[in-house]
């Protein structure tokens, strides 16, 4: 049983990956890492390597698929894209994230 803190972090990473793929379309791992860092304005310290086991986990669950392709600089790279199950998962996770943050905000305000 992992500690609750890392669970939240992992869940966050999942959400970020799925959301990135949803808004940007098929991307390779480096692109995803870059995008997450840009969007969070470099506030999120991400070990880019941890992305890969997460991507694999998503793929095993059928949320994303992968395909070898060629990057804009003519480099071979593996492209990940969201499946229908992944989109559904994203909706669910975004919703539960929203609920969670609303709740936490409420708690912080009232006490």
């Amino acid at each position, binding site marked *: 049983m992992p500690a609750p803190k890392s669970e939240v972090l992992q869940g966050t990473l999942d959400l970020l990956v799925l959301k990135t793929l949803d808004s940007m379309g098929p991307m390779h*791992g*480096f692109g995803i*890492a870059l995008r997450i860092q840009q969007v969070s304005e470099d506030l999120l310290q991400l070990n880019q*390597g941890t992305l*890969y086991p997460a991507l694999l986990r998503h793929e*095993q*669950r059928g949320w994303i698929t992968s395909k070898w392709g060629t990057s804009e600089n003519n480099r071979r790279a593996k492209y990940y894209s969201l499946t229908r199950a992944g989109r559904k998962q994203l909706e669910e996770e975004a919703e539960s994230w929203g609920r969670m943050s609303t709740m936490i905000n409420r708690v912080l305000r009232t006490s």
Partner: protein
Amino acid sequence: MLEFVQVFLRRLASLFRRRGLEDDLDEELRSHLEMAVELHVRKGMAPEDARSEARRSFGGVEQTKEAYRDQRGLPMIETMLQDLRFGLRMLRRSPGFSVLAILCLTLGIGANAAVFSWIEGILFRPYPAVAHQESLVAVGGTSRDEPQGTSLSWPDFLDLQRSCTLCETLFVSKITGTTLSIGDRAERTTGSIVSANYFDAIGVPPMLGRGFLPGEDQGQSAHPVAVISYQLWRGRFRGDPQIIGKTERLDGAVHTIVGVAPEGFYGTFVGWRMNFWVPVSMEDTFEGGGYKLEDRGARWIESYARLKPGVTQQQAQQEFAAISQRLEATYPATNRGRGVRLWPLWQTPFNNAATLLPTLETMLVVVVCVLLIACANVGNLLLVRSFARRHEMSVRLAIGAGTARLWRQLLTEGLVLSLFGAAGGLLAAYWCRHALVLLFPARGGVQMYLPGELDWRVLALSATVCLVTTLLMGLVPALQTSKIDLASSMKMEAAGVVGGRGRAWVRSGLVLVQVSLSFILLVGTGLLMQSLLTIRSTSPGFNARGVQYTGIDLVSVGYTPARAQNFQDELLERVRSLPGVESAAFSRMVPLSYVSSATAPIVVDGYTPPLEESPTVDYNEVGPGYFVTLGIPLVSGREFTRADDEKVALVAMVNETMAQRYWQGRNPLGQRLQLKGSWLQVVGVAKDSKYSSVREKPTPFFFIALRQNNLRGGVLNIRTPLAPQTMAAALAREVRALDPDIAPYELITLQEQLERSTSPQMVAVTLVGVLGGLALLLAAVGLYGVMSYAVSQSTRELGLRMALGADASNLLRLVMSRGLALTAGGVLLGAAVALALTRLLGNLLYKVSPRDPLAFGSALAVMTIASLAACFLPAWRATRTDPARALRD
């Protein structure tokens, strides 16, 4: 759940294309890093800085790969596969050890699986194709004389069937036989007399035609219909699809075939395959003793009940006891002192389950002993090897392997061994599943049927045995490694001492166990051997040597009683005048055959039975010259003659026990007894002999004259010194001369019959003896191994002793005494366990106490000799120690 399965399958699949996936991973990460470097360079970093910046923001590449791999595959399984591969490699590296260990385990696990399969197929689920055998129980009667179980009468059975509320159904299945002539040879085949509900009750619908209709089990010979077995249909009727409605002569009566039982159904009798089924109403065609359906005193019904779900045997037993008490009160004349009893199927008293139960129980104990001995042996081998691998283990510990990881690897190695052993063992058990029957000779041309059953229960049990074996064996070296002292074991091994304790105690302990287990088996062998010898040397009361018998079936060929009588008289004349024939006589049955004697309630003139007794005695129908032919001496009076026929007054002969019990000191000659309503006069008293079993106690028994009972079949007994083949040829000639349509059965010597009746003992002696011998060998090898090892480890001490003046005989004594001390310990332990265990042999023992000193003494002698032999070589080697070299090295 579905997602979990999907993920699991994907991860499992990845194990099989690891190499390709690994390349993919490398390429993906490389391309990530290169893209990062490119980006940084484009932003104006120096290539060197760009590279380290890319690496920094990526994190550890190797850690990432490791985490990725764990996510990709199934780490648990992968470690296990790795251990397995390593285990296999270790086994391949020492083939001698591996073969020996696997052979030991094959023997141990195979013997267990075979005995499990026999117990399953013969005792627990004996009737293939029958539904829900676990809810079946055997139903029989008890009486004051036979508390161990006897049959029921048909009216009693019907009352049970009517009043029982805890049973779903009760049905009858009583073994019988008939002759089928196939070509020019007569063959005996077995079948069952059953109640009309039989096929419904067991849940086996016939494959063709129908079962019996309600009401077909009523009336005297009213419903000559039969269901035949699949084998009979294929064999005798060549699979005729139009078989239904055709007729077949069974025991003289023409039966209409109404059904064919499905393939793989062999009836409900442990030990024999049933080939036909007839309703109870045909009973007087097949059974001796006339029409019995309305006779509450005639007990011949063997039946089974199917309990309702959730009903225990005890509850049903209570209800049956209440019903039988009611019957006792209503019908005191026939039911006084009688009860009804239930048995689980595996204790069924009226088939071979009862005879085989103690044999199989004994064998179970024996094979467990053999397995333990095999485990101890393999444990010993592993231990020796673990000493050799001490260095490897120490290095592994030193470079950081946890003890748990080492244990896991050692257990995996044990598992590999026992998996091989289990595979070999199951194969062996599969080959042996029908082997039990080989130990029982065919009777009257019919081979017994004792199938083993390797179903999932047996497999599960064998798997458990395999796991336990692994634990037992793997634990030994594992315990040893946990005590490895890194510092000292990386250095040279310290020299041992012959009498030293230290780590030798594990091996000595194992040898102790082996010695005690094989001592137990030796004691068992001794006890069984002794009872077999006792039985063999017990006089059966008749002189079996030189007596041969055969059956001649006149019923099947449709002889009338008068014609049969004529035929028998003429045949007897012809046989008696054959050269070499001393005497000959007909009888209804021979002693000790599987056909049960006729039994009937009797009334004895001048004997008032106590209130709770209704005298019932077994009897045989015999012709003139029977007692001379079988060599049964007469105490007084005469035996039957040709003059004792239907024209004169009915006569009977009694045995000594019967004379004592019912005439109590008075001379029974000239007195009367009543059988089935007619009075018979006692004309002779014969000495007691054995009637249904060699091991029976003296029982009352009487004889009635065959010629006064119009028996058409029967057995021809011949006393002759001629060989059976010669006699058989001569007999066949005489029979054919009288009627070319008749063929006698196979000629069997009475001696053979006598020996057959001891076959459970014979089987037990053979099996326990063979396995006990193997166990002794294993234990001796174990003892030898321990002593040789001890001697080889203590050359320094031995050399020192020699240098200090000990001579060869001192050293011999030193080593031998240590070996014998181990043996003595094992024997003491074994004797203690044996005293508790030998009672299990139960009725396999005949006139031998389970604590018989002779058996224990001879086991001790054999064990001592074996251990002397095992210790001698190491001891002799000890005396050859060269003190100079031993001290120098």
